[in-house]
């Protein structure tokens, strides 16, 4: 059993710590950088921004993505905006303080204070960077940047480009990346899945990937490797993630020694388009801004099959307004999701299998007129109509919570390095700032803080301190070993030749996970979930059917490898949720709630990051990284 390494948190006051540390970090002369190779896995917001910046600074970068182009990464789908402490006035200390505190509080005091502080301090430079790249943010009449207010915030500090902020930020990073491709500093390696890491004397020195067109396994050596591979909400099968979003690279890293932090911390978004059919492949997010004008309700009568317009006002239960008179429909994501689920479980739900609630624009239309509502939410209304085939102006929308974001991820220290030296982890794939619940509009911010600013400094500093270089014989051997491991995984899956398709297993896994480790968890359910996942995993490896042509495109094989990893990760998520005997943020344990049904945190025993170490052939070991707070004191969230 190894011990948890030092998280390398700054000493002294956390205000300004990042700047103090940064000036003292060692650097590398440009001539030397020129001979150094960095592999970045993932072309989304954090991967592309890190790759572009490291290349600008003189390194050679290879960027690997499973897409045909980095522009397709799922950051592209982020709608709402990006938080930043940036005002027109020069002195902006208040803004930084507020963003810092809201981030810590939003995460329900389960993230490191120092990393949240850094996020807020860097945020202003990120907006500068994006604007200089040409990101067309919304503007005020006089031409300055516009902001809007977002959930969990008291001030307006969310910068946005209509409902397509993620797309515009990603294109900014993508274009910066393409500029470095033009400068021959970045080599793009599209349509490749990373399957293994190459480890030499405990240090990560490259990756093995499968070329998704030729099926060939390839080795890419590097002085350092960055994983920027996103989150793992697709464990749930139906989520708002893109279909190919996966955990393979982080899970392979975990099995090779990178510790995994808070795997059970997953965010469920309340306003998504619900399930319409068994073969539905994903759940689509509808921006929560709709809750500003939409009223959420269910019939008061159980199992009421009437058309919504036939249900009179007195027989409707506007349950969020009833339970939370002051916040009403605007309660935070986790609270709204939980109340919707409880009522659907109790039989009040509507739609397919009674698994949705109404989001009704009727009263807003009566008050403001259809024109105003249409101009405000036009793109969302169109999207709903395309998917569901009903007009939200004529009939209430049906919505239901859906897995959306994973706060957990590979454990990294303050410098974003995992427990495997040479392996850095960025963006949603790590665990740095969101604690038990991510604040709206902080995901894009974290990706760009990691990619543009933190990783370039810390990767450089780590490389500067590297004196030992392995012999080529040692690297060759490690490459051969990693290739053989990847090949064996493929062979094992293909030779099963069972009678059940991959998606069938994935759907079943999703059902187990949403029921046992979703919006609400309890000990009995989690224990059953562990058993169910084990059974499903065994069945998968005995009965899955994968087409056996492997030297060519084989999307079924890609899926099978992803699902194999999800099955193992699911087990860790359940174990983590089981061992955290408190409720905090998005992690709600039935047994730990207040009289009013709200999350009951246990700071005495659980003010920590749970850090899991993989052990071959035995149960994972849980380490604990204690959290302490000095600039902000833990208090209770209340929305009543």
């Amino acid at each position, binding site marked *: 059993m190894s011990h948890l390494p030092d998280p390398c948190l700054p000493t002294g006051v956390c205000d300004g710590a990042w700047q103090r540390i940064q000036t003292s970090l060692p650097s590398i002369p440009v001539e030397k950088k020129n001979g150094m190779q960095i592999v970045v896995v993932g072309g989304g917001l954090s991967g592309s*921004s890190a790759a572009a*910046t490291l290349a*600008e600074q003189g390194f050679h970068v290879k960027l690997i993505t499973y*897409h045909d*182009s980095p*522009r*397709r990464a*799922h950051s*592209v*789908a982020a709608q709402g905006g990006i938080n930043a402490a*940036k005002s027109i006035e020069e002195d902006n200390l208040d803004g930084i303080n507020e963003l810092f505190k809201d981030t810590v509080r939003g995460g329900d005091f389960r993230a490191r204070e120092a990393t949240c502080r850094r996020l807020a301090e860097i945020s202003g*430079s990120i907006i*500068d*960077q*994006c*604007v*200089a*790249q*040409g990101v*067309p943010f919304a*503007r005020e009449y006089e*031409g*300055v*940047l516009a902001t809007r207010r977002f959930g969990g915030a008291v001030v307006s500090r969310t910068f946005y*480009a*209509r409902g*397509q902020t993620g*797309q515009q930020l990603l294109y900014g990073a*993508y*274009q*910066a990346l*393409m*500029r470095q491709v*033009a400068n021959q500093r970045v080599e793009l390696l599209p349509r490749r899945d990373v399957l293994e890491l190459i480890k030499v004397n405990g240090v990560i020195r490259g990756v093995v990937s499968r070329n998704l067109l030729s099926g060939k396994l390839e080795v890419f050596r590097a002085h350092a490797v960055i994983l920027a591979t996103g989150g793992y909400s697709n464990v749930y099968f139906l989520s708002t993630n*893109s*279909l*190919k979003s996966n955990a393979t690279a982080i899970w392979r890293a975990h099995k090779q020694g990178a510790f995994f932090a808070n795997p059970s911390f997953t965010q469920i978004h309340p306003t998504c388009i619900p399930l*319409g*059919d068994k*073969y*539905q*492949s*994903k759940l*689509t*997010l509808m921006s929560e801004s709709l809750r500003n004008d939409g009223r959420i309700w269910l019939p008061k009568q159980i199992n009421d099959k009437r058309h919504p317009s036939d249900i009179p006002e007195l027989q409707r239960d506007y349950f969020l307004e009833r339970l939370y008179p002051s916040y009403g429909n605007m309660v935070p994501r986790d609270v709204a999701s939980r109340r919707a689920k409880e009522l659907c479980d109790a039989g009040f739900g509507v739609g397919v299998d009674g698994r949705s609630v109404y989001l009704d624009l009727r009263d807003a239309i009566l008050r403001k007129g259809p024109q105003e509502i249409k101009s405000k939410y036009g793109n969302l209304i169109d*999207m709903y109509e*395309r*998917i569901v085939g009903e007009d939200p102006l004529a009939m209430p929308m049906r919505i239901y919570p859906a897995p959306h974001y994973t706060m957990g991820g590979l454990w990294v220290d303050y410098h974003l390095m995992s427990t495997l030296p040479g392996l850095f982890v960025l963006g949603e794939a790590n665990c740095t700032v969101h604690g038990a619940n991510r604040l709206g509009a902080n995901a894009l911010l974290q990706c760009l803080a990691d990619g*543009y600013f933190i990783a*370039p400094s810390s990767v450089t500093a780590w490389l500067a301190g590297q004196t030992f270089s392995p012999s080529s014989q040692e690297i060759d051997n490690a490459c051969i070993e990693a290739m053989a491991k990847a090949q064996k995984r493929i062979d094992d899956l293909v030779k099963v030749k069972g*009678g059940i*398709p991959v*998606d069938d297993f994935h759907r079943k896994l999703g059902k187990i996970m949403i029921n046992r480790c979703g919006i609400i968890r309890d000990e009995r359910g989690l224990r059953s979930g562990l058993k169910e996942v084990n059974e499903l995993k065994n069945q998968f490896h005995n009965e899955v*059917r*994968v*087409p056996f*042509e492997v030297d*060519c495109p084989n*999307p*079924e094989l890609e899926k099978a490898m992803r699902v194999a990893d999800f099955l193992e990760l699911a087990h860790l998520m359940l174990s983590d949720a089981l061992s955290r005997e408190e409720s905090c943020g998005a992690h709600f344990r039935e047994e730990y709630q207040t009289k009013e049904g709200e999350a009951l945190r246990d700071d005495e025993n659980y003010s920590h990051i749970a850090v899991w170490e993989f052990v071959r052939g035995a149960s994972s070991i849980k380490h604990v990284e204690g959290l302490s707070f000095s600039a902000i004191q833990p208090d209770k969230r209340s929305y009543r």
Partner: protein
Amino acid sequence: MTNKISLDLRIWRQESVSQEGAYVEYRIEDLSTNLSLLEALDKLNEELVMNGERPINFDHDCREGICGSCGFLVNGQPHGPKDATTICQLYLRNFRDQSTLTLEPLRAKAFPLIQDLVVDRSSLDRLIISGGFYSVDTGSAPDANSFKVSQDNSSSAFQTATCIGCGACIASCRNASASLFVAAKLAHLGQLPQGQTLRSERAKQMKKQMAAEEFGSCSNNLDCEAICPKEISSNWISWMNRE
């Protein structure tokens, strides 16, 4: 209320660019009209896998109309018959029961075929590499508010920046021209104050690359505008030609 639909699908199957391709007919029966066309293909693929046949290959990922991965032809039209809609958001309720749909890959010289409905669109990346960016290093940016941008300009730049790079405009053009794709990028970058230096240089470089990739010249038929899932106006092509 769930309605059911049955369709005949004629799908272009081609193992690889070096092998001959052909249409193969499939039938899908009694599917819910609440499924998307891609979900119908998922289900068909599940059946093919069970029968020991190679599943149909098509590009897709976000399934919410924003990543630009999907985009084959449905009855000759990129992204199918519905306006402002990518193929991943095209639902079966948009088709008549018992009708026949012909699915084939985007066809253009600059998009070599990979397999079935999948083509190689890396030529679009190379157009951006040729000059579709501002040259600004991380950390060297001036204060964001030092650029004032009017609401009209910023909104117009945004409109052109929404191009998802799906390639439908090219496949819809009888000359397989990339004019709308390039014009959208030049207009995005050229309308903002940050992008005024090197503005004509950018246009020159990207136009040169367009020719090198063997995209054709603009056909002036405006099919690109009609087919664009993000409704980008073809007026930007004349704007580009004035640059």
